[in-house]
């Protein structure tokens, strides 16, 4: 459904990501793993056409269901984002206007995509929040982002992203800023999305433990190049790649190696 062919992305003519190939089926969960600066985020930003200033796809093809995304004009992009493809960020609180309540941000988002009344948009927002199992959705709609905990904000972010049941959900370090208990809850909810809506998900993370739990397929990136890739079983058990092994080693495990 989504295909990236030999994609090279450059910032100001300096290639950051090179020869990136990936193809994805509907309902698949793929993880992009790697250290900071390995170009993971750049890749998913390119899929959404949201490269920051100076960034450009200089070679290759990105196609979504046969349509060439790179040939899109801004009007077409605008229609695509938030409906067919949506994104959740590391801290969903930071993407929301801090001076507006969740309810007004949420209805504004719905109203840009649909011609319905404000009241209907509000109810739709509440429905989405409840689906994310957020208690007291009314209360949340009337809160400011800073009044919610990190886990709740992340759920609001997912609820917004899922409003139009996108075919593809991009998640940029969705759990890195959260407590371990909250992280487990969010991971479980994201996997539930696939079961409920058959959404394809691309997760960017530096934690191979999370990646291994969530995904069917793992892509390991290092300095802008795909270092290793394969199914979860391959990456965890068979891969002989040194870098992959190093990342796997770094995941702290219970009852495992102790330093003291």
């Amino acid at each position: 459904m989504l295909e990236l062919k030999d994609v090279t992305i450059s910032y100001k003519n300096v290639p950051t990501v090179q020869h990136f190939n990936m193809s994805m089926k509907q309902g698949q969960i793929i993880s992009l793993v790697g250290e900071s600066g390995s170009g993971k985020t750049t890749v998913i930003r390119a899929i959404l056409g949201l490269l920051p200033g100076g960034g450009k796809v200089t070679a290759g093809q990105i196609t979504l269901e046969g349509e060439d995304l790179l040939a899109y004009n801004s009007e077409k992009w605008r229609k695509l984002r938030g409906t067919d493809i949506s994104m959740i960020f590391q801290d969903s609180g930071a993407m929301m206007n801090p001076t507006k309540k969740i309810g007004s941000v949420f209805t504004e988002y719905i109203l840009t995509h649909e011609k319905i009344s404000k009241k209907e948009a509000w109810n739709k927002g509440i429905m989405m929040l409840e689906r994310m199992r957020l208690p007291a959705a009314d209360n949340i709609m009337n809160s400011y982002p800073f009044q919610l905990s990190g886990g709740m904000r992340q759920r609001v972010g997912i609820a917004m992203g899922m409003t139009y049941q996108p075919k593809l959900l991009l998640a940029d370090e969705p759990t890195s800023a959260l407590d371990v208990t909250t992280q487990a809850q969010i991971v479980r909810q994201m996997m539930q999305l696939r079961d409920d809506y058959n959404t394809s998900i691309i997760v960017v993370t530096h934690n191979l433990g999370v990646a291994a739990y969530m995904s069917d397929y793992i892509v390991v990136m290092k300095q802008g190049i795909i270092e290793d890739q394969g199914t979860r079983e391959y990456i965890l058990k068979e891969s002989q790649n040194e870098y992959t092994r190093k990342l796997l080693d770094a995941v702290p495990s219970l009852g495992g190696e102790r330093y003291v």
Partner: protein
Amino acid sequence: MNIPESFWMLFRLLEVNVMSEKREVILEAKHITRRFPASHGRTLLANDDINLKMYKGETLGLVGESGCGKSTFMRFLVSLDKPSEGEILYRGTDITKLHGEELRQSRQNIQMVFQDPTLSFNPKMVIRDIVCEPLMNFKKIKKSEKDAVCRKLLEMVELPGDFADRYPHNMSGGQRQRVAIARALALEPEIVVLDEATSALDVSVQKTVIELITKLQREKNITFGFICHDIALVQQVAHQIAVMYLGNLVETLPGSELSSKAMHPYTKALMGAVFDIHMDFSKPIESIESEAPSPLDLPKGCPFQGRCEQCMDICKREKPQMTEVEPGHQVACHLYGGKK
């Protein structure tokens, strides 16, 4: 206040004999309670009757979710805050009662490394000035010695000595955290508090920093207070683990026994939420639902009652007390007779 080293030696020997234990307690927190005033005349109980001991050359790991009071407690150790009640005895002196010059001098012994190294450095200072600042403050070295001392400290944390001329923004997160460790160790403190010192780092960088910390501990016999929310990581580095929930200690046990002997439902829940590459992926991850309630309106009884699957009637009435189940293993839970 200059007590000769020989006296301490004798004192330690005596202590070891009296306690018939080889581990030497260098810091003891007794009945630490901290209340913060909150709006509408309410109080927020951040620490409720915490009793902990730190042993020479060992790591005390403090785990719990955000807002459970881990950092509040560790801030008392570095005298950044004072408890409402209770005392902290460092080598026999209550450091919470110190003032002025005495307090300043005592800060040499207990230092801290913060979570975000970018925020804990002055961006306009070069690394040399950052690392040597504590030494200059206590007039331990002359200006002319700074370069050599800094080089030595940087090499100790496995950074090239040339980094002395860099600014904090010219380094990666892992390198900055190493500089923060060098600064904390500059005064050769006995205790270093690491407040989520590796949480902002990539997993692979985290591993190298942890290796550095444990190496330094072996070489210099430093005592660490390690705050972290990832119980798997704490288990790797801590000799003694203390689990906190909503301002209360719920379980303390040796780090080596965590995976086999943890008892409290909350400790088990934290362990269940760990993503492990060796886990069985077909099983759903076991994590407690919901989030920690606000510490403002604590229910009567056990603080964990609302999220505990094994909650009984007694849990809603009585608060369980810390009970020793084995030497070095205490748990506060009615399931294990948490009554006095």
